[in-house]
């Protein structure tokens, strides 16, 4: 038999850029089988962790060596996608650690749960590498459908069922809107490639059909990010779902939405702006207003919440508003800031949710009342929560502050080395006022933990994996705060990779 070795090598070479993602998918397929064989949830979780670690190690290696490559011109691996894949891997790593001991993820579907989790993660990674509207759409669906199932897994809980139904309906609506928008764009421009569409828009200008197409797509993917006014599902879903799933959705799925926005709208408008500067101004204002409204509504409504999980959900909405600043400013520095913020957000919001998960696990509850006197009962846990909340509020020297420092500064100076412009200064002011508002409700949790007296001072046990997850998050938050250099370097490389798509 005559096997052409070189052709096999060619196949390997061609799949190399997506190999980290393939590992996740293959791992996902094995999950139910491992659960069947060992019948122990922890073994399955450990296997899932190993799969994620292998995939992340490979990805980190590729990122570190600056590898780039593409797979059939639909998926591109570069500094941006590599970094974002790493982010999604970090998210799923934390989610698995928490899920492995959580009582909220039912015992009956453990194999399926981890399979769904890994498939959803690989979908996110596909979105990070996709360059075409269709592949982006498929990637997003690959995340959405497992997410519906994961939310519904806590099926004896009426809140979870409600959340799942809401999530499916809203998700279906959002997919429908997006497909509608994509089909119109394809009809107009004859391509689904984003740069192709960009050059079409640049040539043809805004027609009514194009505006409808863009609007439906912003709305459709806006649901994913939970932009106001497309946000109403998010608090219910985050509150109703099992906390590991909430972690995954609020830190991962939301980031994927931002990535989609970057891949489609950022690239589109930066491309147009680079040739016809005046043409994007209207759209920039649309994004600026979306950003301002989203952060304000998220923060103001969060003040009224007494359930900490729900409060964090609203604060997630607000944080998405901050990240939208990049789409108003449309510059490489703003994009760097947003990517940096995404990472900080994973650690601080993920960490805060981990603490919430620990308290639910210990049977303490999730309302503000249950947090009273926590500092006496669990000093370390309260200290970690304190750090996460201060970081979310943007208090230095934590990751959240550094991220805000970079991101908000982009509203003052569009690009580094350029002049200070007054155009988006109002957006920076809205952002900082919001930042101060958010301090109020975060401080309420801190006050409950540290100042108010609880009914009991009884200690409780914290499962090791959850503690590990919390400590990993806190390390991330502190490192991003006091030693941001390396993170900033990779974020700016990633932003440069996006900018280099432009001719």
């Amino acid at each position, binding site marked *: 038999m005559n096997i052409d070795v070189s052709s096999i090598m060619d196949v390997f070479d061609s799949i190399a850029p997506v190999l980290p993602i393939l590992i996740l998918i293959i791992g996902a397929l094995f999950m139910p089988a491992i659960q069947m064989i060992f019948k122990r949830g922890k073994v399955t979780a450990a296997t899932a962790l190993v799969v994620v670690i292998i995939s992340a190690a490979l990805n980190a290696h590729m990122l570190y060596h600056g590898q780039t490559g593409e797979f059939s011109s639909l998926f591109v691996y570069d500094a941006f996608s590599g970094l974002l894949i790493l982010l999604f891997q970090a998210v799923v790593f934390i989610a698995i650690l928490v899920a492995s001991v959580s009582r909220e993820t039912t015992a009956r579907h453990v194999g399926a749960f981890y399979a769904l989790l890994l498939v959803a993660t690989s979908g996110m990674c596909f979105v990070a590498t996709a360059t075409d509207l269709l592949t982006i759409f498929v990637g997003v669906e690959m995340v959405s459908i497992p997410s519906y199932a994961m939310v519904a897994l806590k099926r004896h809980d009426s809140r979870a069922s409600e959340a799942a139904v809401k999530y499916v309906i809203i998700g279906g609506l959002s997919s429908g809107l997006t497909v509608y928008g994509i089909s119109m764009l394809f009809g107009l421009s004859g391509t689904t490639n984003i740069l192709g569409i960009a050059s079409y828009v640049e040539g043809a200008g805004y027609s009514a059909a194009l505006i409808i197409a863009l609007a439906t797509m912003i709305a459709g993917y806006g649901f994913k990010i939970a932009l106001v006014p497309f946000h109403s599902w998010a608090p219910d879903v985050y509150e109703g779902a099992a906390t590991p799933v909430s972690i995954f959705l609020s830190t991962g799925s939301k980031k994927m939405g931002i990535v989609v926005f970057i891949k489609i709208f950022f690239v589109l408008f930066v491309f147009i702006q680079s040739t016809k500067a005046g043409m994007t101004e209207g759209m920039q204002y649309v994004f600026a207003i979306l950003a301002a409204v989203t952060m304000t509504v998220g923060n103001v409504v969060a003040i009224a919440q007494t359930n900490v999980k729900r409060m964090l959900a609203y604060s997630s909405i607000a944080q998405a508003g901050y990240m939208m600043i990049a789409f108003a400013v449309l510059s490489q520095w703003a994009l760097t800031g947003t990517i940096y913020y995404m990472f900080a957000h994973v650690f601080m919001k993920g960490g805060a949710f981990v603490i919430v998960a620990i308290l639910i696990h210990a049977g303490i509850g999730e309302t503000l009342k249950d947090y009273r006197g926590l500092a006496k009962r669990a000093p370390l846990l309260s200290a970690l929560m304190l750090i996460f909340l201060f970081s979310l509020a943007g*208090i230095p020297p934590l990751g959240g502050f550094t991220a805000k*420092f970079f991101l908000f500064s982009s509203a003052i*100076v569009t690009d580094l*080395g350029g*002049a200070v412009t007054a155009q988006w200064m109002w957006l*920076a002011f809205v952002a900082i006022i919001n930042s101060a508002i958010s301090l109020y409700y975060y401080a309420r949790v801190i*006050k409950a933990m540290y*100042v108010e007296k609880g009914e009991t001072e009884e200690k409780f046990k914290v499962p090791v994996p959850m503690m590990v997850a919390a400590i990993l998050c806190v390390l991330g938050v502190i490192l991003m705060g006091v030693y941001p250099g390396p993170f900033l370097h990779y974020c700016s490389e990633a932003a440069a990779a996006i900018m280099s798509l432009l001719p």
Partner: protein
Amino acid sequence: MFDEIPILTLMLVIPLVGAALTLMMGKGKEKFAKYVAGIFSGIVLILATILLFEENVAALAENHVWIDAANIRISYILEIDGLSKLMVFLTALLIFLVVVFESSESDRPNYYHTLVMLMQVGLMGVYLSADYFLFYIMWEVTLIPMYFMISWYGGPRRHYAAIKFFIYTHVASLVMLIGIFAMSFQAAELLGSPIVDFSFAVVASAAPLFEKAFQILVFGMLFFGFAVKMPMVPFHTWLPDAHVEAPTGGSVLLAGVMLKMGSYGIIRIALNVFPEGSIWWAEIIMVVALVSIVYGAYACVAQTDLKKMVAYSSINHMGMVLLGIAASLLYIKYTASPVESLASLGITFAVFQMFAHGLVTAVLFMVCGFTGHSVGTREMPLLGGLAGKMPYLATFMMIGFMASLGLPGLVGFWGEFGVIFSFYVGAEAMGHIWLIVFCLLSIMLNAGFYIWAMQRTLFGRETTKIDMSKVHDVSKAQGFSLAVLCIFIALFGIWPDLALGVIEPFASSFIDIFQGALLP
């Protein structure tokens, strides 16, 4: 002498270690926390005293690149000069004395000392850092211990006061942060450098290049941030609440050193980077200062709570600091060829007033806090004849009040006299000498309410409205703290050159650079 030792870093690290140690004290060992904190803050105080007399301060500067990525350069720079020398000394002194004084009002004494030590890290950082990123971090770091200090050890309305303090000053800091962004980025653009450097020196080197409109705008943002901290009317409302609810040590640090951060920032950053902007704002600064002075003094008269009265008097005295700054600006603005010695007068005495107020207000808050604690109330209508039961306290209170109202021979006199004198020079240059009336009004009111307060609380017949049987005088440690402060108040009152000698070289070189940047 300190070529090898990074002494400025030690000023941050020693309290940090102290904070860590006191935090880890277990149950039953809390009382050792006081000694640990005392030793660590004592070492810092010794270092600060040595620094005060160190001539060759340029050699002490430390400069390490901290973040250098994506065209952003943030450095860890610590520097010290005449202005920061004095502030560092004041901080070290007050922290040490607060630790010695120690309010026994805490059920978790070790955490109290942890907070004090953390506050020292932040305060020292603010006064030493010479990079905007580092400065901002330190600026915010001071907030967190103070928040906890008020909400753990404070009075009945402590939750409200703590959160009000936290959010109010945080908003101000954020506005300042925007200002910092604007000037750092614009400086990079004007200097034609592809790298945005956040160090004080680099941004200041662009000072003559900034456009006037830009200077006016960004100076406004910075001024807002600093004025809230000082606090100046109308942004002062957080202060009385915070002071009334804070524990004694918290009040001392809040008024003694934290308020100075505001005026320090105005001199160090706002004036230094935006000479033209600050000249434009000169009259507005003056009006804000005069309003604060008069309003603060009037508000004092209306208070019945001893501590609240002292809190409002802080607004009055910090207004004096700002008036000194305004005096320099006005003189430069309205004089064709300003004489340097007259131009630097306002800045010199503003800094002196900062120092003086730090010493005096510490005494005042200590005696008020102690009175409240020992007698059970601070309401002046309920008090009376305390001098009989508490002779030492009465003595210290009298010295404090006299120094605060500006009795010659005590430190407060030189601060107020100097500021008013320099303001006279400024007002004369402007052609509105009558403005000095407001200062005189303030002096009059000050003398009035302090003497009245003394009469009502210390002298006269012992009150029958409250139970005076358990009232006791200050303990030895508390007496020591108060005595040290009173000695300094008298020392600097008799020999103001001790402090002026440190300030003057700074002020004259500062004005030199300031005027140089103004030249076309």
